């Protein structure tokens, strides 16, 4: 991925996971699902753990979910996140039955509760890279 001025860690995208990242760039949440039993799975992987099919399809997710947990990152651990620290990272149960971790924007950590509704937003980082984030819905 070509991003000369971008200093955060880049995802190491594979052929298996590329549709997810392509979807984000088009501001769509695209999730992998089993072609046989239709179980949605995340993160992408080669085999369905329900029916063992190796055939998969990609479906568009709603971007709606609820708060499963969160943390407030005070110590950034990576220099590129220092300028936005402290920042909240949320773990979200998506309506499609899978879970996803992404920053939670514009929220007050002291007001958060498990199960709060959230929605996905798209953050364009470089022309090639869009990352997911959540906001309280």
């Amino acid at each position: 991925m070509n991003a000369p001025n971008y200093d955060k860690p880049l995802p190491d995208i594979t052929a298996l996971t590329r549709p997810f990242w392509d979807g984000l760039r088009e501001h769509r949440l695209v999730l992998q699902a089993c072609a046989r039993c239709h179980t949605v799975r995340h993160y992408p992987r080669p085999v369905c753990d329900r029916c063992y099919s190796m055939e998969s399809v990609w479906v568009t997710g709603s971007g709606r979910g609820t708060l499963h947990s969160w943390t407030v990152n005070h110590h950034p651990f990576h220099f590129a996140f220092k300028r936005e620290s402290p920042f909240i990272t949320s773990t979200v149960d998506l309506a499609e039955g899978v879970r996803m971790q992404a920053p939670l924007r514009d929220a007050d950590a002291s007001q958060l509760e498990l199960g709060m509704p959230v929605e996905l937003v798209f953050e364009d980082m470089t022309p090639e890279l869009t990352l997911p984030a959540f906001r309280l819905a």
Partner: protein
Amino acid sequence: MSIRDQACVTGIGETKYTRETTRTQAELTFEAALAAIADAGLEPKDIDGVVPYVMGGVIAEDFITNFGLPDLRYSALTPMGGASSVAALQNAALAVAGGLANHVLITLGRGALSTGRITDRIGQMPQFRVVGEFEMPMGTVAPAQFYAPMARRHMELYGTTSEQLGEIAVTFRKHALLHDNAMMQKPMTLADHQASRMIADPLRLYDCCLESAGAAAVVISRADRARDLRQPPVYIGGVAEGHPDSPSTITQRPDICRIGLAKAAPKAFAMAGVTHQDIDVAEIYDCFTYIVLCQLEDMGFCAKGEGGAFVQGGRIALGGELPVNTHGGLLSQAHIAGMNHIVELTRQLRGQAGARQVANAEVGLVTGYGDLGDGSIAILHR
């Protein structure tokens, strides 16, 4: 065939634990290994099995070369991060019980300068690739950040408090003060814990383990070969490993407050034929305070959600009902990825723990925890 009591810890060895070192991981590992072999009353040529630490950069062939081993006939790796050392006990016990080897050496060394920081090492582990792709780009790059949402959810569901996590840190510090090979020699109060800076909420600085350099090693011998060695044998009564659902990412786990140890613990207790009431001392992997609390629950010392109350009131301190991490653990002795926990449990069961000796310790357990949720457990007895 059960492997219960077929294998014994017969030798233990450690280097001095420090924050930094100029010595290599190999030098430290060999020093601890030679100490363990000598402690058992063996010669290096007696070692015929080796299970080195998978991240250690020291392989079985290095022991043949440096120790002149004439007949190394068993070697293996147990790639489970911080659960590797205790999982290696299972591996070595199987090897000696099956007659493949008589004396298996298990080693773990880390030379801080030569092997990099914990955060760097995580990037090298293949099972973290999904984390690298889907979580690190958004800022979740270090263990404290992986584990914090587990602890946060536990607090929200069960009312667990930062003070309860603090009690774990303070207790282990108290124990470390009784050990001359513990890195932390300054007392810590609950107020100190509460005043320590937030790293990844709810984990404060004093909820996080140390970065250390050093090495530890143990020798596992077939029971019939152990009886006439130098030290009283410490038997491996029960041992097991367990992997959580969604082993490589905490995020994807159906229950993020439940780890692989929940599957392993009942198997180890059943194999050893003991109950929780029989455990005199426990050395529990403590990369973070919360992980200790979680393991106490997942082993069944209390119900899920009751770990916070369980650790209060001195119950896990020396003199309490279940003394935990009598050496100070990874939080206050040194981060030797759990090998130091096995060394300490062996000392306790031999009655060689000095000022921190648990009176009449006969049965104890040691756990390993690593790779974001793998668990291992051994129940040892004298």
